[in-house]
């Protein structure tokens, strides 16, 4: 039973990957946009770091790496939307979720597999190219130590889990709110700001920075970036991964709890 279901969810993830891989023109168009925004943000950071070298503990090269890493992870983490949550919300609103619930698959595991497939495609297609473009145009800081890359890969995977878990909660909110657009928007804004997408969280002042670094969104970009940039050494890196894992577990458990509450108490609309 366990073995076959692992194969089943792997198949769901593969389909998730292929589904997004179909739209090649859209992917290329997205890459153009990532590159343009990367350029704009990179120049604003150069202006900032040339006046305050070592701002937030980054050198200018590290800050520029942060910019292109952010552009590369933007679509994989679905920070600007584009993940599965709207689709899940639509299925809840239309009542189609009833069909999903009597399928011999777990709702959360199904969407997690599909979303990991999507994210893997986005990482390869929209993650690698901005980093290459960025390294051709600017001097970036990349670690030479292979262990750092391994830790970074683990950190990205945990970041994907946190990103999924937050968006699963957003999707489930449609069980209670017929129009979940408000929740989606608030979570989307919080994600953009508190992930460090607009400005690295270690440049945020005082208490705002402390709070921002403790929120789950920091696990989506700031923590993986700091792992890659070698800001966490030895035990520090493990603590950073632990922080991500703790948020992932807590949010996935919350999603599971909310899912069982929803399926027990909510009457599905439609007929």
């Amino acid at each position: 039973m366990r073995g076959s279901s692992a194969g089943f969810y792997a198949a769901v993830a593969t389909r998730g990957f292929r589904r997004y891989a179909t739209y090649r023109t859209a992917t290329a168009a997205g890459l153009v946009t990532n590159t343009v925004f990367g350029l704009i943000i990179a120049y604003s950071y150069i202006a900032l770091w040339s006046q305050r070298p070592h701002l937030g503990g980054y050198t200018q090269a590290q800050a520029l790496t942060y910019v292109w890493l952010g552009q590369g992870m933007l679509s994989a983490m679905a920070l600007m939307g584009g993940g599965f949550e709207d689709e899940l919300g639509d299925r809840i609103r239309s009542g189609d979720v009833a069909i999903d619930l009597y399928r011999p698959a777990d709702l959360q595991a199904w969407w997690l597999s599909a979303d990991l497939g999507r994210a893997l495609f986005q990482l390869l297609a929209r993650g690698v190219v901005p980093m290459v473009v960025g390294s051709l145009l600017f001097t970036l800081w990349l670690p030479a130590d292979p262990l750092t890359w391994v830790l970074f890969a683990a950190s990205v995977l945990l970041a994907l889990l946190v990103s999924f878990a937050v968006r699963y909660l957003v999707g489930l909110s449609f069980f209670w709110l017929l129009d979940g657009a408000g929740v989606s928007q608030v979570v989307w804004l919080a994600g953009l700001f508190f992930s460090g997408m607009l400005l690295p969280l270690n440049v945020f002042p005082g208490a705002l920075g402390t709070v921002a670094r403790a929120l789950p969104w920091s696990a989506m970009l700031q923590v993986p970036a700091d792992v890659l940039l070698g800001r966490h050494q030895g035990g520090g890196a493990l603590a950073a991964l632990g922080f991500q894992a703790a948020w992932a577990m807590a949010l996935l458990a919350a999603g599971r709890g909310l899912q069982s509450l929803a399926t027990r108490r909510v009457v599905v609309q439609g007929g």
Partner: protein
Amino acid sequence: MADRPVPPAPAGAVADEALPGAWRARYDARRGPGHRAAEGMRVYGLVVGMWVRSTMAYRASFAMTALGNLAATALDFVTIVLMFGRVHALGGFTLPEVGFLYGTAGTAFGLADLFLGSMDRLGRRVRDGTLDALLLRPAPVLAQVAADKFALRRLGRIVQGLAVLGWSLARVDVHWTWWRAAMVPGMVVCGGIIFCAVFTAGAAFQFVAQDAAEVQNSVTYGGNTMLQYPPGIFARELVRGVTFVVPLAFVNWLPALRVLGEPDPLGLPGWLDFASPLVAALCCALAAAAWRTGLRAYRSTGS
């Protein structure tokens, strides 16, 4: 629009009846292009009115999404304020000066986004075949596409841009003369028109590449973001690109540098600072030509 009577076709055009393009050409020949523009505006107003009424059926939802729209754009400015928490000047500009750039660009872009922001849905309409329905209606296609899904919540962006602009005007160190004061609304209006032309040209491009809607975002949203920062911080080639290729520099950079008394990093002739209305007119002409070319090249998917 269904209640509007279809004007009688000119005599001798029976074979061409089925072709909307030919029909329109004859319609124009009879009534003149001025009439066509007025008709376009009327149709735009009717469709917009319909969307506004439907939005206002859910007032609380409208208030929240408009507020969300405002908050989303405000985060850009919060980021700039956070940057200025660490430095006193960015590219030689103080926070009020950057606010002036931000306010003019944001308001101009907000106007275009409100009026024509839904045009980036054209690719979807081409893909799913619903554009054909618009071609059959006796109304200019551009007006129908422009008004499609008109989103009043985008007022949020304009309000936010105006708020930053007002804040910055009270703080920038400028010796105000009548022509400097006149340049501020001029930037907003001409800038809005230039962005409208970009939206239209982008939509025309989607006739060719339906899936490439996101490329347009790099010029519209990306352009807006770029114009919020002083031109001096960007590479020269990039500034040349947004001056001569996609002339976004005329939205606010060149006129704002003149108002603020800052030097132009490209060292262009001074009269160009006042050329925004001319550039806006030129952009409109080019965008209109692109739109007509795109519409003529349109082949229905048949679905």
